[in-house]
């Protein structure tokens, strides 16, 4: 029987994995993917809560919006990454350290 707890557990795992990806991976695209993971974790939470706890549609709508925004964000992010690649010919995150004290 699948309960709310399992959903929450899955989403928590997703969240942590996303964070770790963002911390550890050097590939910018991978880091963008990490963001997606985190967003999905949040979306999953919303849906699960609206299914099990609050019997209203707010959660679902929220999830939809999240997906939508995530798409836009990913698009913009990738565009910038491409620009960065055009200039630097790399997408290694540690190349992006020109701006500092």
């Amino acid at each position, binding site marked *: 029987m699948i309960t709310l707890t399992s959903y929450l557990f899955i*989403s928590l795992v997703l969240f942590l994995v996303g964070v770790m990806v963002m911390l550890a991976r050097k590939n910018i695209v991978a880091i963008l993917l990490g963001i997606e993971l985190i967003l999905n974790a949040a979306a999953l939470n919303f849906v699960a809560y609206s299914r099990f706890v609050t019997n209203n549609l*707010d959660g679902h709508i929220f999830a939809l919006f999240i997906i939508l925004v995530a798409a836009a964000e990913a698009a913009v992010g990738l565009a910038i990454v491409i620009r960065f690649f055009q200039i630097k010919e790399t997408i290694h995150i540690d190349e992006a350290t020109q701006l500092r004290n």
Partner: protein
Amino acid sequence: MLEQLLISASFYIPELLSILLMCFLLMAEASHSMENEHGSRDKIYGLGIIGLLVILGACIFNFTKAPTAVFYNAVIIDPFSTLVKIIMVLGTLGSVYLSRSSKDIYTNLKSEFMIMSVGVLIGGMLLASANNMLTLYLGIETLSILSYVMTSLKRDDATSAEAGIKYALYGGLTAGVMLFGMSHIYGQLGTIQFAEMVTKLSALEGQSFVVLMISFLMFFTGIGYKISCFPFHMWSPDVYQGAPIPVTSFFSIVPKMAGIAVLIRVSMIFFGTGSAIAVTWIGLLHVIAAMTMTVGNVTAIGQSSVKRLLAFSSIGHVGVMMLGVVVLNEVGVQAILFYGIVYMFMTLAAFYITSHLSDMYGTDTQDVFKGLIYKHPLMAIVMVGVLFSLAGVPPFSGFVAKFNIFSVIIEKKYYGLAIIAALNSVISLYYYMRLAKTIIFGEADSEEKVPGFTGLNQTIIFVMFVPVLVLGVFWESIMNISGYAKIFIR
């Protein structure tokens, strides 16, 4: 149903207008002819500025209206949000005009700047009057996503692109964290409407507080990142430095004001009533505000790049404004709004002068200010005045703003915070005066005039400086206006 929407729309004119304006600008951009770039860009600018002025008018018209919640409580229109919107529109106007003359943005991209600034403005407006978590999230994202693009508007410039990437990634992370927190809040309280959440909150008790507190922290992460307060400030210096100067000035006004607005609203709604978790929250705000001021000012001391210096100083100013949030009452809001208005004028003037200078020299180190007093005495005096005002020296309005903030925290008897703020203003005076010193006492390497300072530009800069000076002496009217701009909770 329909007339419900229409009624709501009647309150929602400024936002609708700006959306309309954005669409027009997009079409104009699409239809602009390759052979006559210049003219078409002028068209776009003209259209944009006129539109912004109209929006401004609509906001002012809205200001006196009775506060209402529209679109099924999703959005709330009250004098507070409207005043914030006015500030944001003014800021947008200022940076748009600056972008026109600035060499920092590649000519082909100027119209993009125009369009996207309006987009960011829409996001800010949405944020300023958000009444539930969804609108808040949408506002932040609208604000952010377009900001990423604006940051990397410099073509073929590594730093700009890098700044864009950092901004995007950092924004993404914080947005994600915020959403995660929101989701748990939704789970605990069962609604996304602020007003209902408050009632639930007061009814709630037991161990779910822990979860709720954590969730609120995550929630705050998103806002804190927008206003770039400690510890979420670290993206801003890099982004400010990487972005073109008009964008920087734009960022240091519009998103910050929106973020501050939403922070005030959320804090007032959730914790103004003195609910169970309010105490912890206020303690947290104490620490954050103090740290933000201190980190911003202390780090600013070492900066050679003026853009970066202004970025850090803006962090310091956000810290000061947060003092007004800490007290969680209407006078605090009043003080913050006054501060916002004054800060907008000061920042614009400072960025205008910096931009024209760095256009001439191609860099924005403090040395470009050397001997300004001999080349352009008026500009030098304005800049020095603005710097003094930023530091909070009478008779400039910056002092009055600081005075109000001080008075609200001292009214609450937060003397510790007051002392920290006092020390901070001394530190800030120190680095502002090192810049002022360069302006006045530094010997110019060359006698050639700064091309940017045409008569018109100087006039505009001076016009921006006038309120900085006048509001320092006759500030009651503005205080009353910002006092009138109360927060409406529904």
